[in-house]
């Protein structure tokens, strides 16, 4: 039974039982229980998107993105979800891809201006704080909407080592050893927690990241997907780049084999 409809003076229609609808029309309004609904709705947009994970290990950072392929007509490799922000910084996104592209430009400008002014690579903590500040600014006014994407930034530097930060639509940035965003983030986090990432190298981690993406991918609801893998670390001499073809194939093979093993072991238990 649908709740009764109410018509307001300016012809907006809402369901009478949802009282929060008075407070969720603009980012410049708090609800009585202290929430900004527009920001929460933005985070829902991220949760509708497919999963992206980033893990930091002993000597680098690895990103993995489950890129759902909606049509067989798409060219392979289009609509990348991992961006290069600077030579030593990579960014993996989840949520509205257009919003994410705009933010990647913001991040690129920040990193570039920093180098121009101060003469060295931007520290990742500073970059993530600057971009987070930008994202936060869009949660303050009714004239604009918040960004509907979260992203994970990763870098590798001679002096700071590997770094991993995540920024969400509310404009906060968090530092991580491993994090996941998107629809299967809970399942992915559970898998990530099982890893001893501080003792692993990038080469070992790449395989594990591929495996986690394959595990959390829902074969029933979403059919085809492309696995986007990238890394930055000692193995790439500090340069962020997509994983080379042979490493990718090895990682995907490991992932597929591990899944089959788990299926087999399930059968044995029965």
């Amino acid at each position, binding site marked *: 039974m649908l709740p009764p409809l109410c018509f307001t003076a300016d012809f907006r229609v809402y369901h009478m039982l949802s009282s929060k609808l008075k407070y969720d029309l603009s980012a410049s309004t708090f609800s009585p229980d202290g929430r900004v609904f527009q920001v929460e709705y933005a985070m829902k947009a991220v949760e509708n998107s497919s999963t992206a994970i980033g893990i930091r290990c002993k000597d680098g950072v690895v990103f993995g993105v489950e890129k759902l392929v909606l049509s067989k007509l798409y060219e392979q490799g289009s609509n990348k979800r991992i961006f290069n922000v600077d030579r030593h910084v990579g960014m993996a996104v989840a949520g509205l891809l257009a919003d994410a592209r705009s933010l990647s430009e913001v991040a690129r400008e920040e990193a570039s201006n920093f180098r121009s*002014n*101060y003469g*060295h690579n931007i520290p990742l903590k500073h970059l993530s704080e600057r971009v987070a500040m930008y994202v936060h600014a869009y949660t303050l006014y009714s004239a604009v909407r918040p960004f509907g994407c979260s992203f994970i930034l990763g870098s590798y530097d001679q002096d700071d080592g590997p770094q991993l930060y995540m920024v969400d639509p509310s404009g906060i940035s968090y530092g991580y050893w491993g994090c996941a965003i998107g629809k299967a983030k809970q399942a992915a986090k559970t898998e990530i927690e099982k890893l001893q990432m501080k003792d692993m190298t990038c080469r070992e981690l790449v395989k594990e990241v591929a495996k986690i993406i394959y595990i959390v991918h829902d074969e029933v609801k979403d059919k085809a997907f492309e696995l986007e893998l990238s890394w930055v670390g000692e193995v790439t001499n500090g340069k962020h780049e997509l994983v080379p073809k042979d490493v990718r194939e090895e990682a995907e093979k490991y992932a597929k084999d591990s899944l089959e093993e788990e299926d087999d072991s399930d059968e044995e238990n029965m």
Partner: protein
Amino acid sequence: MAACMSANRSENAFSANDLVPEWAQEEVSTGTTIMAVEFDGGVVIGADSRTTTGAYIANRVTDKLTPIHDHIFCCRSGSAADTQAVADAVTYQLGFHSIELDEPPLVQTAANLFKQMCYRYREELMAGIIVAGWDKRKGGQVYTVPMGGMIVRQPVSVGGSGSSYIYGFMDSNYKPGMTKEECLHFCTQALTLAMERDGSSGGVARLAAITEDGVERRVVLGNQLPKFSNV
């Protein structure tokens, strides 16, 4: 010997402008000899202490070694006003940057800030600066930012009008791998030689050693400077 005796020279000669004497129209210049040396674990910096307005010594005990941050100093040569203004601006910018990063700033950052300003305003400024200090990443570093606004890192660098007279001494006496005390001795000797020959350099020799533990300053008074000539 090129000694110049001008019997008719008057210190109160007026030029085209009637209101003030010529010497008061000259810009205040840190004539100067400045230098900086890297060693393992820090840097040693040194400068003379003479500021001139034309031929008049406006300040005979100037401190040309200016702190920019806890472990970063700059040695100033050229126009006193220009270098003070630029040093103040960079001190502000670097302090802000350090708070934002929540980390002590890099010497390279300070040097680049000087370079940005000196290059952008190169037509208006007369400033030759040596930036030296210690940071956790690369240890002791010396960057020279001469007039015009280029930047280069060097293990040892000299600057100012008096530097012309000590390039030979520097090239023949500098050895990589010197200790802090050897560097201090090297600087004292170099400054003395320059102050001896350059009219715009003189007074006392100011030195500072910057390491991870902080800054240690020394002054070598005029009568304590090493003697090179027996005359």
